[in-house]
């Protein structure tokens, strides 16, 4: 996780409108392939939803997009950085991306300390204005001083969103961010995420089981099955005229697995 070996990973920069370019990417756990994506481009400033059944490799892909787990083969290009099996992402690259997970684990501290956390990692000791603004964005300014462990599931997830947004990442990865939440919080989080994308231009990759959520939020949708990307298309095409019969079946709600 050091920047020491970044020298030989400098590649020609991607075109401005491309955030990630994935080429021949695969991940193997204990001899078992869990992910194989030949080609995928994630565009700058888009909301890309990845749908598909559990075990399709969606979360594995997100961990690699966050540079927390190197690929077994192939590469992910991100700006001038190239992530391949023997590379460690430099801190400066890693810090442009962050993830909000299905089950947020907050620190056993007040809410505002949790939101401040990522900035403190970056050496910012005081950041009350930014922390307040982020809490405002998720509608939890009134809970700033409360202990994080006293929050409800929906509130905790919004704090997790605030602690990610306060970092103003170029890319925000969302791993089932609204699973297990009540409809009120689902709606709220979708609204926050949409605003973030529209106003800050943050690139969002959303993994979800919920195809309706993908339909509501995404510009493009990809369907993953058994570690493979079956189809990627803009949202309307994906739902109304998918090319792959398996996508069509999944969109209809049929069992494809």
């Amino acid at each position, binding site marked *: 996780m050091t920047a020491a070996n970044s020298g030989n990973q400098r590649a020609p920069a991607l075109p401005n409108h491309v955030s990630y370019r994935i080429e021949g990417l695969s991940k193997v756990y204990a001899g078992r392939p869990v992910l194989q994506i030949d080609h995928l481009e994630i565009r700058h400033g888009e909301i890309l939803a990845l749908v598909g059944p559990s075990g399709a490799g969606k979360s594995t892909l997100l961990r690699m997009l966050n540079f927390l787990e190197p690929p077994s083969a192939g590469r992910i290009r991100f700006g001038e950085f190239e992530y391949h099996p023997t590379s460690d992402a430099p*801190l400066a690259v890693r810090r442009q991306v962050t993830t909000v997970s299905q089950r947020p684990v907050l620190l056993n501290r007040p809410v505002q300390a949790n939101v401040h956390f990522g900035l403190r990692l970056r050496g910012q000791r005081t950041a009350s204005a930014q922390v307040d603004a982020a809490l405002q964005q998720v509608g939890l300014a009134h809970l700033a001083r409360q202990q994080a462990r006293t929050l409800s599931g929906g509130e905790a997830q919004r704090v997790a969103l605030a602690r990610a947004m306060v970092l103003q990442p170029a890319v925000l990865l969302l791993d089932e961010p609204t699973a297990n939440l009540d409809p009120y919080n689902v709606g709220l989080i979708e609204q926050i995420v949409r605003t973030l994308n529209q106003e800050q231009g943050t690139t969002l990759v959303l993994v979800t089981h919920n195809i309706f959520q993908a339909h509501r939020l995404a510009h493009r949708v990809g369907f993953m099955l058994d570690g493979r990307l079956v189809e990627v298309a803009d949202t309307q095409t994906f739902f109304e005229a998918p090319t792959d019969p398996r996508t069509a079946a999944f969109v209809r709600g049929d069992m494809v697995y």
Partner: protein
Amino acid sequence: MLSAGEFDSPNFGTGASLIDELWNGLRQAVNLLFNPDSALTEIVALSLRVSGIALLFSTIIGVPVGAALGLWRFLGRKLVVAFMYTGMGFPPVVIGLFVYLMLSRSGPLGQLNSPLIPNLFTPGAMIIAQTIIAFPLVAGFTMAAVMGVDPQLRQQVQSLGATTWQTAWTVITEARIGVIVAVIAGFGGIISEVGAVMLVGGNIEGRTRVLTTAIVLETRKGNFELAIALGLILLGITFVINALMLRLQGRAIDT
């Protein structure tokens, strides 16, 4: 009254019953607590100094070692953990024997004659023995505490841009309550320990006599009031320090 050597056997003799003897001892003990003589304060001070310094050393070494064992998988980790668990249940008197043999004139460390290595029958030797006794307790409970932190936390902290060290530090601070418990366990293990300090310290009046060894001596001499007074003080110290740490724990939960 604290001199070694003279060895009256306790006199439960004729007339006064054991209960009277104890009651009398308790009254005199309380009296002694409020009017301590210099020998008593010396013993208390040395106990606190020896166990305090030993606890400091074992915390400085034990917390990072325990945290590393809890955080990372590396070659030989299981062996180290097995040794540590053995150390947690090791009879202190055997550790005392080991330190005794190491430090004695003909022992491997004693032979070096280095100014850095304390002689036998000094507080320094006692500190070494107690550090060895407390270290596996501190490290073992710290490891358990660190392993008890939600494993998802690490990944989420990393995803927020933490370096390896920042991640480790965050996990340790999340385990802070357990780490405090580890320190309490270490202290409890050494402040009340007799065998090792007796062996390597020698229970020398005015030099290496601590609460536990003094209690043994005074009881055997039949000076029950003094033994009870010392016992009460030992209980009191343990209580106060544990209460203090529990308060810290409470603060760790609240903020």
